[in-house]
């Protein structure tokens, strides 16, 4: 038990530790903080959109700063570090090694994140999370944009270092008695994610340097006045950030492979198809980046190629869903909070995946591009699937980390509210998009249908917000006063299987 708030260890002992559980804990606390901060921005954004016209913002510019920082925070300070945190916590335990391969490198990778947090939040850039030139190189305001570039640059390096560490830990430090095809699927998800990060991230890091020198006026890679091409940036950007979708998504798949069999009290339906689907999607995920750019004037051939590439990524994802359902089928399911969040995430993944299949149809893109359809679609996967699964994982790890049990009824209330809120806000966003509501605007035309849809969505957002306030209260209060958990079987599954993370306690910190 790492975080025993009744008997606190000195803060410096956690902060300067290189032990994988401590670093994992720091990662998770940082990312949950970012989730709360980014969520607060989302609340402000949704509140502004409750009515047409301007309520709380002075104009488009301030609003742009809010959605830029919201997006950047949620993607790079919540989704990626949280997955790294859980990986840190579980991977060494799962491969039965005393720590990560390079503990100090691990600590360095973590400690790159807080400065980026500060850079992004102090700068409060306004160029949206994808920072398309020429706006970002010619028009975006002063130090904010530069701070954003540096923060993303450092975050890129941090995630590459973390990924290298994971790869080496899993492939080289694995216990000799543990063959690759016997290790938990979560480790396979971490391998796939790390391989994707190592392959894709350098491209964006290069693009950031090019963008920065463009901003300085030294070069003109993306500046059309100097012979550059803004579309080149979009290719570099999406070559990193379409795979990044899977970098967010595969860890949550890995977590579901932990949660679903445990609470179904049944082994995984098909281990092999899980491995195959993870590896295949890690490869195919690189073949579809330009489907984000159908509307930038691509040729017909390009559009066809990337449509096929996008469609090809669907079957592996469908295999995961089938695997989850077949695992639950006939199992004695216990709907504890982690399982609720896991099943909720799968259900919403089915919805967002169906939307994704529809999105591949090129002609539809010219209706939905940069509309609220897109916003609804990717939030449905990022909030609906990824964040819900991550939340479930927090509940799942809570007894291990604190040695105490969370308040189960509060957790169930949290789930119900979050689920209702998510369906309201992101389901309605799809409709708004088809109705022609553009994204990234603080003001919209006062049409009755748009107003009512935005009000439903805003109400949903408030419900999500309040559910996560409950979550925060539950976590803090239960960590201090919760009832002590049975370390062998905290969820009272009575399967006879030990809650195997008990291993973590056997290793002293160093």
């Amino acid at each position, binding site marked *: 038990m790492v975080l025993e708030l009744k008997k606190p260890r000195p803060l410096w002992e956690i902060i300067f530790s290189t032990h994988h559980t401590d670093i994992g804990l720091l990662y998770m606390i940082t990312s949950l903080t970012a989730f709360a901060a980014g969520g607060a921005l989302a609340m402000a954004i949704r509140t502004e959109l409750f009515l047409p016209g301007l309520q709380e913002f002075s104009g*488009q510019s301030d609003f742009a700063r809010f959605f830029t920082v919201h997006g950047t925070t949620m993607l790079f300070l919540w989704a990626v570090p949280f997955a790294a945190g859980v990986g840190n916590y579980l991977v060494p335990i799962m491969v039965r090694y005393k720590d990560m391969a390079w503990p100090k490198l691990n600590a360095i990778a973590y400690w790159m994140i807080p400065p980026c947090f500060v850079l992004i939040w102090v700068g409060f850039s306004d160029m949206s999370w994808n920072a398309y030139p020429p706006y970002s190189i010619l028009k975006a305001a002063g130090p904010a944009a530069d701070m954003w570039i540096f923060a993303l640059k450092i975050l890129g390096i941090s995630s590459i270092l973390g990924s290298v560490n994971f790869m080496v830990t899993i492939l080289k430090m694995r216990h000799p008695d543990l063959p690759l095809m016997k290790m938990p699927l979560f480790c396979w998800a971490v391998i796939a994610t790390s391989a994707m990060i190592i392959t894709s991230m350098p491209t964006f890091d290069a693009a950031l340097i090019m963008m920065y020198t463009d901003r300085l006026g030294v070069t003109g890679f993306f500046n059309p006045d100097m012979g550059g091409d803004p579309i080149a940036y979009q290719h570099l950007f999406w070559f990193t950030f379409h795979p990044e979708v899977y970098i967010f998504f595969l860890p949550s798949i890995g977590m579901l492979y932990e949660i679903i069999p445990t609470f179904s009290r049944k082994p995984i*339906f*098909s281990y092999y198809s899980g491995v195959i689907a993870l590896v295949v999607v890690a490869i195919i995920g690189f073949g579809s980046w330009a489907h984000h750019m159908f509307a930038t004037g691509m040729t017909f051939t390009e559009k066809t190629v990337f449509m096929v590439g996008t469609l090809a990524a669907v079957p592996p994802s469908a295999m995961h869903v089938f695997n989850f359902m077949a695992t639950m089928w006939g199992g004695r399911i216990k709907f504890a909070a982690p399982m609720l969040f896991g099943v909720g995430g799968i259900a919403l993944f089915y919805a967002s995946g169906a939307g994704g299949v529809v999105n591949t149809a090129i*002609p539809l893109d010219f209706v939905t591009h940069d509309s609220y359809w897109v916003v609804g679609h990717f939030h449905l996967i990022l909030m609906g699937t990824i964040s819900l699964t991550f939340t479930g994982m927090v509940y799942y790890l809570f007894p291990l980390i604190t040695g105490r049990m969370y308040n189960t009824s509060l957790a169930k209330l949290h789930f119900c509210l979050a689920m209702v809120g998510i369906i309201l806000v992101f389901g309605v966003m799809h409709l708004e998009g088809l109705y022609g509501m553009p994204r990234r605007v603080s003001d919209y035309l006062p049409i009755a249908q748009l107003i009512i849809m935005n009000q439903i969505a805003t109400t949903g957002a408030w419900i999500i917000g309040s559910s996560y306030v409950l979550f925060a209260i539950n976590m803090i209060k239960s960590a201090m006063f919760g009832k002590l958990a049975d370390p062998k079987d905290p969820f009272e599954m009575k399967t006879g299987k030990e809650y195997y993370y008990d291993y973590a306690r056997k290793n002293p910190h160093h």
Partner: protein
Amino acid sequence: MGHSTSEWAFVLVVIALLIWVGAESWRVEHTLEFAPPNSETVRVIGQQWFWSFQHADGTQEVNELHLKANVPYRFEIVSNDVIHDFAVPDFAILMDAVPGRVNSLWNVFDKPGEYLIECREYCGQGHQQMRAKLFIEPNNNATAATGAGGSSAASTTGTQPSSAISQGTGLISVVKPGSNATVTQGTGLERVVKPPTITQNASSGSSNTTSAASTKTSAPAPSGPSVALSIPSGASTQGNPSYDPATLSIKKGDIVTVTNNDNAPHTVTSGSSATDPKNGKLFDSGLIMPGKSVKVNTASLAPGTYPFHCTVHTFMSGTLTVKA
């Protein structure tokens, strides 16, 4: 573990569905991709933060686009500064305007009416106000001429004021010269641009006129002495001086000559911001293109202090003090 038959069946069903989706969208996209050879070309220019349109015959419109129903149009979409996105949601038209590239799409508008054109790609401060109006006029047997009062206001070349809109490349719907056939417009389309109190500066060349700047109005002829107000170079970047002088003192009845020395279009519009109730009510120069100048008549203003701003760049503001 695992029962591979059911899983294979599931995956094959998914793949079959995907192939169907892919094939169908390929077929549709193939139709959408290639414009019919007789389509008229309209050039769409996106710029922070307004749209301008150039018809095949050289006429220009700003923030208003007049097209005819049932005629195939091919849009060439370009941008002058950052990436914009030309979108007409009602017709499912959407294409990025990328600086340095010419993107195209085509469409046949089948329902007359007034529609919204908006920018879908975040392009900075004025992004959400970057809207324009699309007017689709009924097209009777391809002999439609534009309404009598309409074309002179919306687009003027100075040579063919009564039939400016619909002259394409000659393949379709050529307007008979001198024909007074006006369309019976049951939709109540109002094409007359509200006459602002401005007069055209003589220095504006006819080849480069825009609807706002070229509108001859019934404003009284300039009478009072002229006072200069200039928009310095670089004003379109926030933080730089917007107007020179920032506070302009005039006598009632003076003519303010606004000269735009910047490389972006600007306006001088009454009111402190777009939400000000006096926005554009007291005086409005309309768009002043780079290098052009426009005269604003202040004869109707009572003595007092009037804030003004630029509708394109809402951060630009100045003050006009009128003395008796």
